[in-house]
């Protein structure tokens, strides 16, 4: 029996982007169904349609083989569809139980909640599906993996028979991913249908029963897991042969470009976010900062690029302390920055691709004379970059808003790598974008390295870190807990440091940091 089905679904967004074209998709009861595809392939849109967040322009949705009219997620939930979003929707200051029962909480009387009954309902259900939750802990004190389980429980208790997960593993450590998969397997054995979006193909192979591959808004096909190999999946996703050929010669580190000494940062609420960080970035190397999201990377990058103030310590560029300098001063020193948020920070969505590409050099030759801004040379320059970075866009005057995530990111990367930077600070440069664009960006970063620039790569993607970094620092709760040469390392090795279960002793760290 089919649990959920989309028949001939087409979705056109108001800006003219066709996200789904005549999509047919179905998931059987109790199966684990992976949906893969490049960014902008229409996966998320399809999921939003199945969950009632977007209305299809045409086509039909069936849930348990009955036509369903979904006007909002409420309708979907009522019909047994639940969704776990990439960004959790939980109240941090509430307990797990309160979050799970929010809106459907049992009451003793008009004024007070029946906490006993709450606990009873949740633990009964938890036993049934076989997973554990710290019911009375506050959500903000929990690790990400547990928060995700809370989200799953929230959906289940509302009667979800179909569970949609949007990139569930992107925020987890390898260990946590394994735990999640145990939970998902368990649920599917109980007859719950799991649909999940992901970019990580090894996970697909590991857990999915069937795989639906999407490309450019269409479904390329649905296959049984054993029918395809990982590289076949990639080929179907991008529609051509794909060579996984990032090769790396050994780095030849040169003089230090960026030296950070005893960097400390306290947030407004007094939390000690960065604790005594010291490290050196040399020319001709890629230094990675690995760690789970929320261990201080965001703050570190913002401090090093002048976006965040009030840190103490030293940041030396060319021997001068530039901690606290403004972004334009740092850019003049040759520090460029690929931010982790291309939409809020990295671009102006309502300006053209060309105008986004010159935002850091609009006042220089040949884009600007003393006053007058030379549109023609701007457009010409943009054409060149579009070609060089193979950005898929109709014209340089197209608004950035119209681009898919991968192409948008390439616009940002194109700008940040072409102004002769000495240091490139790349924060999650390939986060949430397709395989081909990711490879492209990683190769560009390697090229930067080989040209003798320094690259500080901040990433939660271990595959990426292991693929291109020369040295790796692991950040855990604002501290550097490991400093490793990227030789014969595995994801699991890093995972232990990232979780804080293992750390190098201070002697080991001291020695390597003064290298």
């Amino acid at each position, binding site marked *: 029996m089919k649990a959920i089905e989309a028949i001939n679904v*087409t979705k*056109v967004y*108001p*800006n*003219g*982007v*066709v996200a789904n*074209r005549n999509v047919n998709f179905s998931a059987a009861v109790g199966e684990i169904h992976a949906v893969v595809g490049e960014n902008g392939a229409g996966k998320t849109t399809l999921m939003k349609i199945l969950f009632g967040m977007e209305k299809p*322009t045409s086509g039909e949705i069936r849930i348990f083989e009955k036509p369903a009219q979904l006007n909002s997620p409420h309708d979907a939930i009522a019909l047994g569809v639940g969704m776990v979003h990439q960004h959790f929707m939980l109240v941090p200051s509430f307990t797990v139980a309160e979050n799970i029962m929010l809106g459907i909480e049992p009451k003793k009387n008009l004024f007070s909640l029946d906490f006993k009954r709450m606990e009873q309902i949740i633990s009964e259900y938890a036993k049934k599906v076989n997973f554990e939750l710290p019911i009375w802990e506050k959500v903000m004190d929990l690790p990400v993996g547990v928060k995700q389980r809370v989200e799953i429980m929230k959906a289940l208790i509302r009667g979800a028979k179909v569970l949609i997960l949007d990139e569930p593993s992107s925020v987890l450590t390898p260990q946590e991913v394994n735990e999640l998969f145990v939970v998902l397997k368990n649920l599917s054995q109980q007859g719950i249908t799991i649909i999940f979006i992901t970019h990580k193909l090894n996970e697909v192979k590991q857990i999915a029963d069937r795989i639906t591959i999407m490309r450019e808004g269409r479904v390329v096909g649905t296959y049984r897991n054993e029918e395809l190999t990982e590289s076949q999946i990639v080929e179907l996703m991008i529609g051509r042969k794909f060579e996984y050929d990032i090769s790396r010669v050994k780095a030849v580190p040169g003089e230090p470009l960026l030296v950070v000494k005893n960097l400390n940062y306290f947030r407004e609420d007094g939390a000690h976010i960065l604790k005594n960080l010291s490290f050196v970035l040399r020319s001709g190397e890629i230094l990675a900062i690995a760690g789970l999201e929320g261990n201080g990377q965001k703050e570190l990058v913002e401090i090093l*690029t002048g*976006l965040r103030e009030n840190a103490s310590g030293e940041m030396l560029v060319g021997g001068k302390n530039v901690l606290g300098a*403004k*972004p*334009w001063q740092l*850019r003049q020193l040759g520090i460029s*920055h690929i*931010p982790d948020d291309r939409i*809020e*920070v*990295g*671009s*102006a*969505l*309502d*300006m053209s691709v060309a*105008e986004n590409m010159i*935002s*850091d050099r*609009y*006042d220089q030759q040949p*884009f*600007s004379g003393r*006053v*007058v*801004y030379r*549109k023609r040379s701007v457009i010409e320059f943009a054409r060149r970059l579009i070609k060089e970075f193979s950005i898929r866009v109709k014209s340089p005057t197209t608004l950035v808003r119209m681009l898919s995530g991968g192409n948008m990111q390439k616009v940002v990367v194109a700008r940040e790598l072409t102004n002769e930077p000495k240091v490139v600070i790349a924060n999650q440069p390939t986060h949430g974008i397709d395989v081909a664009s990711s490879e492209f960006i990683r190769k560009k970063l390697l090229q930067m390295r080989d040209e003798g620039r320094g690259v500080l790569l901040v990433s939660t993607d271990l595959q990426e870190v292991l693929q291109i970094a020369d040295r790796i620092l692991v950040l855990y709760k604002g501290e550097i807990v490991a400093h490793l040469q990227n030789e014969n390392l595995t994801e699991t090795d890093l995972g232990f440091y990232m979780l804080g279960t293992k750390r190098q002793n201070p002697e080991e760290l001291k020695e390597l940091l003064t290298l």
Partner: protein
Amino acid sequence: MKRSLALLELVRMALTILIALLIGYVFLLFSTKDVAEAFKWFLYGPLSSQRRFVEFLNNSVPLIMTGLALSLVFQARVFNIGAEGCLFFGGFGAMLAALEFPQLSVLHLIVTLLTAALFGAIWAFVPAILKAKWKASELVSSLMMNYIAYLLVLFLVNNYFRDKAAGALVSYRFPQTAWLATLTRYRLNSGFFIAVSVAILIGFLLYFTKYGYEIRVVGANKKFGFYTGINVVVTTFWVQLLAGALAGLAGGIELTAMYRRFVWQSLPGYGFDGIIVAILARNNPFLVIPSALFIAYLRVGANIMSRMMGLAPEVVIVIQSVMILLVTAEALLERFKKRIVEREAMKGE
């Protein structure tokens, strides 16, 4: 697709105006017997004689200037609505220069107008610096500055510059060297040409200079602007000062050309109308010209109608307000727009 969308935008505009006029018509039904006649004067009045046509053009001059001032700040997503106060204070500045420096002869008019612009900028400096230094909301402070300008200037004019020989509460008459010429026997304000040139200049500034680029980036995404190396605080500061200068110049032009005294006893309202002009023009300086002409046409048409029919000019304010409501209602005709977009998007197959 671009063409059909532009066409739709035009149709939408026309429909907006039509609906607004229809509602205006209904209002007229309640206020006069001869609705057709009243409506005719309203729609056709400004074209019915040369004098009235000039009146219409003159009316548009301060609207173009304040419309430009507000377009500039709105482009940078700064909500400084102090154009009214800047205009009033700028008018006061013009009066000071006109009355105090008659010995300048040839340069007198230029100095007078520059003083008006300077005073406008000074007035805009207060909300701008409050914003830059202490992040005070420019919306609140600029609004308050309007009232301060009004009462302060009235106090000064009525106590120190009042012409006791005149039959009304007005300042002394400006010496002839500080007069901005009026043309033809219907007294066309030559400031009209200044306003149009300034509009083109500001349009050029915004779209063809690096400063304009900065303003547009800051308006499109402040975080992005800061990240990419634009000093957002400095840009928003200067854009407010420039807008203040434009509004101040509007006051100077109005007084030196049309009245030759300081005559305002209440806020003339051009600064607030400028908000409407800017919104209609979608903050595009080039479009400010037709947009200001349109508002002026409505204003003058209403005046003529009320003169000819003995009607209250308040009716036009109702019509105008309805029109702004409709213009700003983005969702009007949304369904048609959606259909065009969908059809075009699928055609690419």
